[in-house]
């Protein structure tokens, strides 16, 4: 009887997550993969097994163009987030002397995560707009005479907005990685003759690399799948891959092509994730 009970609990412990994965991950992916081989036929689409959708994606320049643009924006967002988040996290961990201030600032960065994404994106619209806060400010300090329209409705605005929205995902892992570095390692580097700058490059930076990898992966993947920033602050040249997918599933009613795009996107994201995972793992064996 106890054997049976153990079996039952075993089924529960393993079975429920497996069922969950099968039902909510594998099944949807399976459906998407299946659709991607179907073919568009008015009024909707019909089952088939052919690679036409994939061929279209890689031969029609509009999809390649959007894919490359999405990669570019995602990389820019990741880099911008890194350049802002790293010094900030570094300062919090190593330079901020007041624990209270540190907690407060850390929370200040994380807190926007609890605010609606849309609200945060809208905020940037009011900041960057032609009659927005930034223009008013630049005008008031006399830097410009006429409000400029170069801040909103372009790729710059998308990068700024996405960076702002996703930067907590960069700050958190870097902060954690830096916090895990024992203080005596930087002391040891100084002791062995390295100035602060070289000590940073040879000790702090390599040891925080797993955090950077995790943060870059998160910000990259989140930006890569974003379709609201282009909608709100992007300009006519702001279409990203997720927008194209949305169009294919909506306006174009071409689910097969949309599914093929989603699969391509998934492959890109999985590649990035596995690369970063490998890097983190390598970092972990170097961990303490």
């Amino acid at each position: 009887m106890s054997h049976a009970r153990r079996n039952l609990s075993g089924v529960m412990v393993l079975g429920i997550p497996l069922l969950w994965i099968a039902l909510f991950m594998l099944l949807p992916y399976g459906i998407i993969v299946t659709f991607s081989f179907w073919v568009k036929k008015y009024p909707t689409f019909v089952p088939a097994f052919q690679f036409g959708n994939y061929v279209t994606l890689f031969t029609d320049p509009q999809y390649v163009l959007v894919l490359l643009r999405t990669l570019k924006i995602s990389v820019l967002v990741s880099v911008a987030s890194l350049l802002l988040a790293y010094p900030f996290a570094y300062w919090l961990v190593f330079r901020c002397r007041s624990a209270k201030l540190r907690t407060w600032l850390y929370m200040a960065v994380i807190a926007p995560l609890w605010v609606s994404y849309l609200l945060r994106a809208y905020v940037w619209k009011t900041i960057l707009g032609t009659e927005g806060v930034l223009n008013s400010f630049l005008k008031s300090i006399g830097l410009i005479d006429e409000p400029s329209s170069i801040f909103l409705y372009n790729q710059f605005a998308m990068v700024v907005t996405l960076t702002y929205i996703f930067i907590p995902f960069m700050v958190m892992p870097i902060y954690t990685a830096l916090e895990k570095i024992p203080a005596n390692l930087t002391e040891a580097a100084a002791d062995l003759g390295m100035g602060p700058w070289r000590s940073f490059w040879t000790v702090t930076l390599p040891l925080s690399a797993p955090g950077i990898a995790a943060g870059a992966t998160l910000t990259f993947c989140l930006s890569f799948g974003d379709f609201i920033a282009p909608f709100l602050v992007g300009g006519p040249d702001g279409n990203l891959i997720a927008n194209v997918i949305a169009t294919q599933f909506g306006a174009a009613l071409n689910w097969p092509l949309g599914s093929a795009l989603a699969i391509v996107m998934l492959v890109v994201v999985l590649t990035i994730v596995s690369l970063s995972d490998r890097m983190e793992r390598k970092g972990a064996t170097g961990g303490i």
Partner: protein
Amino acid sequence: MTRKILLGALGALALTTAAPALAEGTLNVLTWEGYADSSFISKFEEESGCKVNATYVGSNDDFAPKLMSGGGVYDLITPSIDTTKLMIDLDFVEPLDTAKISEWNNIYKKFRDLDGIQKDGEYYGMPYVWGAIAFMYRDDAFTTPPTSIADLWNPALKGKVALWDDKSSIYVAARLNGDMDIYNLTDEQIAAAQKKLLEQKPLIRKYWATAGELVDLYKAGEVVISNTWAGYQSGMLKAEGIKVTEFIPKEGAEGWMDSWMVVKGTPNKECAYKFLNMQLSPLGQCGVANINGYSVADPVSAKACMTPEQFTSLHQDDPAYLDSLMVWQPLGDRFEAYTNAWNAVKAQ
């Protein structure tokens, strides 16, 4: 008003449309904002005993995916005349018993005769409201009022132009190219329209997607000229104190018309027909005209409830105006060629 638009836009964006509960006597309508506004729906609910749950769409493209993901949720929908045929062909809607619609014969004949709402001699859509895809400009930005689509291609307006993010942009560009049979364009003509739109792209501030977005763009001083859903956005902007003028360019304007359609297999047929009758009655026709500023499909009801000024300004007594509009037509299997061209423009 603005708050409502904003909320509507947010709702559509977030795609958080909870599936309404199925209940006898409760109508779930998938429609545009304003078409089931409480200002006139409450009265209907009291009188008929039917409850109305409205879910709003942000675009005609929302109807098919929402109905595809499973039936049995919505009872009534209001696609535009370029989408009605798709609904019929997808077998999502059922034929109407026009005998049960008392005002049916008062609807503009032009609309009743449209192909888009018929199949095999049966009617599937009840014309409801209509309007032009007019053009609009900010008064303070022009000394000479624009009169042509070409004004949206004027390099002097760089960064101040907005265009509807819809396949209709192909219609606009085609007309500028002189291709007036905009619903039967050849591949070459579509390619030419695509090229024209790419030329315009550097001038574009934003391809607008929702009514609220276009209003915001004018309000924030981002754009001064665009196309628009005649009567709708200009009304909102006037309420905000922003002076804009609508115009029909010399190249003509498209016309749109929305119809009520009954979703196949609805269990609420009785309430559905009560609802259809109400929407064609003065209550429904003036209800929507007052909220959205659109022209209505039944001039008899309109006459009964509108002031003469409103009746005139909505072109309800102007058959020539109606005839001048190039009312949208279903594109059928040419649909993909149009959308693909438009998507290619956006992708650039």
